C-alpha cells in the first residue's frame, strides 16, 4: 500500500538536501553538546556536590530527555518548514502521496535524533558520572524507542507548524503536551537503566524498565498511526 520506492525517494532526498547544507545537523549537534557542557558545569563546579548514585542518575535521566526534547524541537521541524518556505511543497504535493512524504520525513528525522542521542547520551552520563550502575542494553532500548516517539510526534507537529507564520518555539509548545506520556515513561526507564531502584545485573533493571519499554513502544505505534491518518487529510487538502 505505501510504496517502498516512494518512501525511499523521500528519505534519500531529505538526507541529501541536509547533507549538502548540514544546517540541521550542525545546529542540533552544537545544541546537544552545549547542553551537556552546561549540565557538567552546573553539577561539577566548585565546591563539588556530594550527590549519591541514585540522585546523579535521576538528574542525568531528567537532563537527557530535556536535552533530546529541545534538540528535537530545534532540528526536526525543518523537514516541513523548509518545504513551505521555499515553495517546494507545491511540487511535492503534485507528485507524492501523503504516506510516502510523512514516512520518508519521519525516518529521516528519526535518524537525525537517534544519531544525536548516540552522541549525547554517553557524553552526558560520563560528564555527570551517572553510569556506575548502568545497564547499557536497557538504556539503548529506552533511548531508541523514546527517540522514535519524539521523531513521530515532532514530524507531525512540524507539518502543522509549517503552516503558521511565526514558527519559533511553536514546535516545542505544540509537541510538549502530546509528548508528556512519553517523557514520563522515558525518564523512569532511563533512571531504571542507570540503576535507580534496581540492583546490579541485567534481570532486575529490565524488570523495572519493562513497563516503561511497553509504554514507549505503544506510544511510538499510536503516534505514528495517528500522525499518518491525520496527515493524509492535511496533504490531500
Amino acid at each position, binding site marked *: 500500500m505505501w510504496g517502498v520506492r516512494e518512501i525511499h525517494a523521500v528519505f534519500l532526498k531529505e538526507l541529501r538536501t541536509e547533507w549538502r547544507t548540514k544546517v540541521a545537523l550542525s545546529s542540533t549537534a552544537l545544541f546537544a553538546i552545549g547542553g551537556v557542557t552546561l549540565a557538567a558545569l552546573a553539577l561539577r563546579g566548585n565546591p563539588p556536590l556530594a550527590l549519591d548514585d541514585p540522585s546523579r542518575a535521576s538528574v542525568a535521566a531528567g537532563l537527557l530527555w530535556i536535552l533530546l526534547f529541545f534538540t528535537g524541537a530545534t532540528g526536526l521541524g525543518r523537514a516541513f518548514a523548509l518545504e513551505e518556505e521555499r515553495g517546494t511543497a507545491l511540487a511535492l504535493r503534485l507528485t507524492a502521496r501523503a504516506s510516502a512524504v510523512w514516512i520518508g520525513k519521519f525516518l529521516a528525522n528519526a535518524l537525525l535524533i537517534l544519531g544525536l542521542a548516540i552522541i549525547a547520551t554517553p557524553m552526558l552520563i560520563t560528564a555527570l558520572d551517572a553510569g556506575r550502575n548502568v545497564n547499557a542494553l536497557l538504556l539503548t532500548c529506552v533511548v531508541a524507542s523514546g527517540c522514535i516517539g519524539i521523531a513521530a510526534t515532532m514530524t507531525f507537529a512540524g507539518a502543522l507548524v509549517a503552516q503558521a507564520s511565526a514558527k519559533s518555539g511553536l514546535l516545542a509548545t505544540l509537541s510538549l503536551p502530546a509528548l*508528556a506520556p512519553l517523557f514520563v515513561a522515558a525518564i523512569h526507564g532511563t533512571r531504571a537503566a542507570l540503576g535507580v531502584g534496581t540492583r546490579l545485573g541485567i534481570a532486575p533493571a529490565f524488570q523495572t524498565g519493562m513497563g516503561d519499554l511497553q509504554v514507549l513502544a505503544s506510544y511510538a505505534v499510536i503516534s505514528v498511526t495517528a500522525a499518518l491518518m491525520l496527515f493524509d487529510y492535511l496533504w490531500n487538502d
Partner: protein
Amino acid sequence: MATIAKIVLGILTGVFTALAFLYLKPAEGFPRPELARIVALHLPNAMAAIVAAFVAAIFGWKYLARGRNPLDDAKSKIAAVLAAIFCGLTTVTGMVFAQYQWGAPWNWDPKQTCIFLLLLIYAAYFVLRAGIEDPEKKGATAAAYIVFAGVMTPLLGYVIPKYLPSLHPTNTKFDAAYHTVIWGMSACLIGIFAWLQNIGIRYEQVKGMAQQLEEEMA
C-alpha cells in the same frame, strides 16, 4: 421553550448549590472538613471540561475529514475555548482544595499534572490558530492538532497514575448525598456548557453573515 429550559437550568443549579451547602455532611478525615464541599464544584467542572474537550475533538475531526464545513471548525473552536475555561476553573477549585487539605496549592499530583497538560494543549491550540492566516488552513491545521492531542491524552491518563504517587482519594467512597450533588451539578454545568456553545455558534454564524453582507454591498 428554550427560555423555559434556561430558567429550569438556573433553578436546578441553585438547588444543587443549596444542597451542596445544606445537605452534604462535612467530609471526615480532612483537616478542614467543611471546606471539602468544594469538590461539589471541582468534580463537575472537570466533567464539563472533559465533555467540552471531547466535543472539540469530534468536530475537529469532522471538519478535517468531512468536507471542511466552516461551521464544524467554529464548533470545534468554541468547544475548545469552553474546555479551556472549564479546565481553568477545575484547576482553581482544585488548588483551593489542595491548599487547605494537603497544605500546598500545587503538588504535581497525577490529576493535577493531567489537567495542567490539558491546559497546555489548549494554549498551544490557540497559539497555532493565531499564527495561520488562511481560515481553511487554520481550521484544518488546528483540527489536526486537537485530534492528535485528543488521541494522545488518554495515554496520559493511563500512564501518569502508574508513575506518580497520588494525593487524590482512590479508595474513599463518597456517600449517596455526595453522589447526588456531584452528578446533579455535573448535569447543570454540562447544560451551561451546551448553552454557551450554542451562543458561541450563533455568534460565529451571524458574524459570517454580516461579512457576507458587507461583501455583497461592496
